[in-house]
């Protein structure tokens, strides 16, 4: 019985020690950077799909340019976010980085709202836009 209690205690303490340890190893700026990578990856996929649709003449140059402009704006915010995250990582928590996250989210919503129907009907775009938006929820 003594060994059994000792075993339970060891396992419980190991589990407790493991969790806070894991949380300590992931600072908040790393978590934010991780989310930014997920969203920017999806943004890249949307951009590639738009260009492919333009090459296939499914969407015209004007609509493509409009979408690429929106993507470029969002990418610009991602670049600013990256700079703010570096600042955060070096000097401590940055309200700018968190505010840029919100701007990034708005830019993604603008992108979805302004997407031409011909492009939005494409399954790749739809699923990636959903992934983009879900990453923020």
């Amino acid at each position, binding site marked *: *019985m003594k*060994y*059994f209690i000792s*075993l*339970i205690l060891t*396992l*419980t303490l190991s*589990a407790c020690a*493991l*969790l806070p340890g*894991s*949380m300590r190893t*992931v*600072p908040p*700026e*790393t*978590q934010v*950077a*991780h989310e*930014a*990578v997920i969203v*920017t*990856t999806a*943004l*890249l996929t949307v*951009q*590639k799909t738009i*260009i492919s649709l*333009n090459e296939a003449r499914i969407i015209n*140059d004007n609509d*493509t*340019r409009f979408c*690429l402009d929106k*993507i*470029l704006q969002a*990418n610009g915010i*991602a*670049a600013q976010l*990256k700079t703010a*995250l*570096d600042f955060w*990582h070096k000097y401590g928590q940055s309200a700018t980085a968190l505010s840029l996250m919100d701007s990034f989210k708005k830019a993604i919503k603008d992108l979805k709202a302004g997407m031409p129907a011909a492009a939005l009907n494409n399954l790749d775009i739809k699923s990636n836009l959903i992934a983009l938006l879900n990453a923020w929820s």
Partner: protein
Amino acid sequence: MDPVLIISTLLTVVKGVKAIAGELKLPTTDYETEITKLQSLIDEINANDAEWRKNHPG
């Protein structure tokens, strides 16, 4: 010591740890890795955009 009880307790603890770890959804990588990935994605988006605009002036 009942071996069945020990095994069942072990399984419960393992299940609990897995469930909590799953809930946390922590990235398994470090800051430098994430930020390097982010920079390369940003660069790739800029490069694709520049390439398309070069071929479609207007």
